[in-house]
């Protein structure tokens, strides 16, 4: 199978590899996929709580080159976006950017799921925090 230059670039030079402290309140973590399916993506966002802007993003991925590239690209796109803007990233945007072939579309779907899961985790923490603050007040 031939890979596009962009997939190869992300595979050879993955952006934003690593992990944040997943217990931090301003960090949202999304982990999707399963080892037996051959893909697991962990994607994390660190949000500036005052502005709601994603100031940093990191990933780790077990999966094929296209899965690695999809999650690497996702972290690049997330940085600088507000949480609401981040939710607008669609898997088809990733497919187009990386020129993924049809058999690799599931990699982009997984990346979109990982973004949504990370944001949902972040929002859950924020709601809880607001809840705690209100109950204290």
């Amino acid at each position, binding site marked *: 199978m031939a890979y596009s230059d962009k997939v190869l670039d992300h595979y050879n030079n993955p952006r934003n590899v690593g992990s944040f402290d997943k217990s931090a309140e301003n960090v949202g973590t999304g982990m999707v996929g399963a*080892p037996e*399916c*051959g893909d*697991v993506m962990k994607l994390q966002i660190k949000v500036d709580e005052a502005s709601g802007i994603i100031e940093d993003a990191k990933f780790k*991925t*077990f999966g*094929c*080159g296209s899965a690695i590239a999809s999650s690497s690209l996702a972290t690049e796109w997330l940085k600088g976006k507000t949480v609401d803007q981040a939710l607008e990233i669609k898997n088809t945007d990733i497919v187009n950017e990386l020129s993924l072939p049809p*058999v690799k579309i599931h990699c982009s779907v997984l990346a979109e799921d990982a973004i949504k899961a990370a944001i949902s985790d972040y929002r859950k923490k924020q709601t809880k925090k607001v809840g705690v603050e209100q109950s204290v007040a």
Partner: protein
Amino acid sequence: MKTPIYLDNHATTQMDPRVLQAMLPYFTEYFGNAASRNHEFGWVAEQAVDKARKQIADLVGASPREIIFTSGATESDNLAIKGVAEMYAEKGNHIITAATEHKAVLDTCKKLEKLGYRVTYLPVKGDGLVDLDMLREAITDKTILVTIMYANNEIGVIQPVAEIGKICREKGVLFHTDGVQAIGKVPVDVNKDNIDLMSITAHKLYGPKGVGALYVRRKAPRVQLTAQMDGGGHERGMRSGTLNVPGIVGLGEACAICQREMPEETKRLRYLRDKLKSKLEAGLDEIYLNGSWEHRLPHSLNLSFAYVEGESLLMGINDVAVSSGSACTSATLEPSYVLKALGLGDDIAHSSIRFGIGRFNTEEEIDYVADKLIDVVRKLRELSPLYEMAKEGIDLSTVSWVHD
């Protein structure tokens, strides 16, 4: 050292230049039809075919008259299984095979099931070998054929063929084996191994593609086959079609070279294979051998690199030609059915790489591949959330994964 490096010798082998030299005159100068009985052109071709028949027979301890030429092992498997099923249909309708067989055997059996035959697919043990007691119990008075490969194409394990053959002989059941991965690599003897039918192909033993043979025992027992192609009645009526003389000459020469050089070659390939394995084990933790170590082809290695997905691994060693059991490398998106038959989890099957070392590999190449793999696996593990979790002491089997 030239790249890419070819380490996929279970898929096919590079043709030995000596084989090519032997074949060349039979394309242009000696182009006759081996079935032409009334002129020099035919006689020369027939002599060449007879010589090759003997070279092949010698390598596997058969008589030349027991060698039927075909287009390759897929045809040989089809001819053996369907030919026996049809010929012995009045005796019984039951065939026994194993879950880890090549598709040429499995799909042929499935076809026969549709025609009303009954097929038992024996499971294999964790080391990839069939359980002889299970085989014995599976044989009924309706069983006409047992077909179990000599050595496996994915994991390289060698089945207890002589014992399987002995059981079949005792029970009066014919025994076919797909011998393509073993012939020319380890000593194969149709008499010592109690084999009645055996598929052979040229391109796995440094010969040309598109030519193979089927060994068909002539006495004790005399095996009969129903031909699967109608025509001129060549090859004792079992396989019609004008013989591929240059191909057959190539198959013969390839067998003769294997027979002459096997002791030395086996030693050299085993040394390279063992070196590859020990270098990888020294450089990496959590790599697992798939299939028996003891009952294994000398040039074969199948390893799983935990927490790393096979296709991404292949991408990182793109100047090395190997295969992976990963789903992503197959059209079906299912991981290897052979590895799953060993009871491996899908995750370990996804992480597997098959190495097949061959006649033309050098020690320098093996060192290069080992070093490169170690680098790439380390890099991919840095990227792997599973490796991170495992290092944190999380048991991955207890995690509930979120997926559709």
